[in-house]
């Protein structure tokens, strides 16, 4: 086999490996692209570190909360308030009521999604029950907080936003996840699940 052929084979084999690696690189690339552009209503699953979001002259927008239990996950899960008005550039705290109505301890993960999708990149959260998995004993209930802010760069064409949370049952995944520190989910703080009870019920 001539030298040219050997060189071509080497180059092509490298290209094959390169493209295989590229396909895996698409995973973080996709996330980066989503975060930067707010595609797919994806919101960051970690607290914002930006301290300069607050302004005094923001405008009012309508905010609606929507909840869904994936695969009829049996907990009660609903927003304390369905529709509120918030100001851009000001923090607001909302709560979600959650209750484990079954006879087993279960662990849940809430996944947020925003509509319209171009609002997502302007939504930042200081804390959110979606940053961590939530564990509840049988019959246990809680009021889970989310402290959020829309920055003032939110396009003026957006006058109302819907934030949806889907609750997933991750009871089986839990052990595998705990064993994996620093997983794709970017857990906030330590691994112990915790939730604040803002008031008794």
């Amino acid at each position, binding site marked *: 086999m001539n030298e040219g052929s050997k060189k*071509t084979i080497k180059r092509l084999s490298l290209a094959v490996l390169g*493209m295989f690696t590229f396909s895996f690189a*698409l*995973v973080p690339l996709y996330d980066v692209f989503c975060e930067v552009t707010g595609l*797919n209503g994806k919101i960051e699953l970690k607290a914002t570190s930006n301290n300069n979001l607050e302004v005094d002259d923001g405008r009012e927008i309508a905010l609606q909360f929507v909840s869904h239990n*994936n695969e009829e996950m049996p907990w009660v899960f609903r927003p304390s308030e369905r529709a509120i008005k918030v100001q851009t550039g000001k923090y607001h705290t909302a709560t979600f009521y959650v209750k484990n109505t079954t006879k087993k301890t279960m662990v849940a993960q809430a996944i947020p999604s925003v509509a319209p*999708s*171009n609002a997502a990149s302007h939504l930042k959260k200081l804390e959110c029950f979606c940053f961590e998995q939530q564990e509840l004993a049988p019959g246990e209930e809680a009021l889970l907080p989310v402290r959020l802010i829309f920055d003032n760069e939110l396009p003026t064409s957006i006058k109302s936003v819907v934030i949806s949370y889907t609750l997933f049952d*991750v009871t089986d995944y839990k052990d595998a996840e705990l064993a994996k520190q620093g997983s*794709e989910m970017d857990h906030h703080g330590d691994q112990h699940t915790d939730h604040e009870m803002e008031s008794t019920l």
Partner: protein
Amino acid sequence: MSAVLESHDHDHHGPAKGLTRWLYTTNHKDIGTLYLWFSFSMFLIGGAMAMVIRAELFQPGMQIVQPEFYNQMLTLHGLIMIFGGVMPAFVGLANWLVPMMVGAPDMALPRMNNLSFWILPFAFLILLSSLFMEGGAPNFGWTFYAPLSTTYAPPSVTFFIFSVHIMGASSIMGAINVIVTIMNMRAPGMTLMKMPLFVWSWLITAYLLIAVMPVLAGAVTMMLMDIHFGTSFFNAAGGGDPVLFQHIFWFFGHPEVYIMILPAFGITSHIIETFSRKQLFGHTSMVWAMGSIAILSFVVWAHHMFTVGLPLAAELFFMWATMLIAVPTGVKVFNWVTTMFKGSITFETPMLFAIAFVVLFTIGGFSGLMLAITPADFQYHDTYFVVAHFHYVLVPGAIFSIMAAVYYWIPKWTGHMYDERLGKLHFWLSFIGVNVTFFPQHWIGLAGMPRRVPDYALQFADWNMVSSVGAFLFGASQILFLFIVIKTVLGGKKATPQVWEGARGLEWTLDSPPPYHTFATPPKIT
């Protein structure tokens, strides 16, 4: 397929005797033959599944199969036709023709060539055996979107993934072989622009394969990890995204459909040139067109995803980029027509298939252009309109070009002319069958029937019945094709080296059939 003829170089033997010849062969002609027969059998098996599908859709109601089995049929039909039918057929043609067309003695890596072929029957054995596994065969469509194909998949999904990895490896190795052969083993004097268009089409196709088959491998590996190793690439609960799957899949999937049509373009150029007895119009332009199509094919993938909730900017970009592909494709059609214009045309069977390709593929292109228009696509997506579109470009598109190629080159491969009357009969039955099957599907889709359903509302009944009748006709006609091919292998009027009056190219300087080893000494290129 190649008779044992003495070549002029006496240090080459003829083929080995017995069945092990086929197992161990490193000869490009033998391997081409293996690929072609394998592809034909897969075409018949995938076709049988299509018959089950169309039989169930013959009338409203469930008559023949259960919905869960129907989903297995439609999934396997797609996988087998694409990875077992069309792609291996084109690889088989590449194997037979590329070395002869560039004046090379064989492919660059003959033993890898053998491996590339033999892992394919192995892969399909695994895939087809999944029909007998608990939970049944894969049932999530050939596009296997997550989470239907991960969390909700039957146990056979793991075998499906294994099978896809093997098919991918076969394609990648084949592509490497093609590129190295073309880039390094052309006869002296054959510059790239002197290369025939079939060779060009395969050079470009091979680069596409190198670029995207590994991405498919990545996608199924991620699936495997989500299913068995607790990762969450595509699982929202774990922070993943089902839409990510679609991006990765279609990044492979769109170039894949051009992989399935570029060699067809090459074949068509050869046949139209020969039977018009006139040099192909715009050779350079044709090369540029194929190159542009290949490059553009990388930036249009999300036109398969217009309804997933992409942002406006993305939808606009993908709409415009997709529309743009119509330009180089149109250029090719215009060049073929202009080749025929003021030519001296006869209508042997290969020419009939090639002309039908140009017309019917173009119709498929028109529905493709309609699909590119995003707001309209909201009404077409996942309906029978899409099914009509891709079957037009794949059946009277890719498959007709393969049949055209077989009729065109089989006298060269076997030394026998096929029966022209039977060939024409096969053509007309197929032509009528294909149009009766797929044209009404445009209407059914526009009227509101979704795809991948085993049953439908009553207003779709009439045209579904028509479509099914066409499918049965088309299916039956392929048995005639099988008969014609076998008959030709076994005997027929002796073929000259030139075979066709207007044929140009190195392969037509060789005997029909050619010696087992050809061009051991490179030919002189003028």
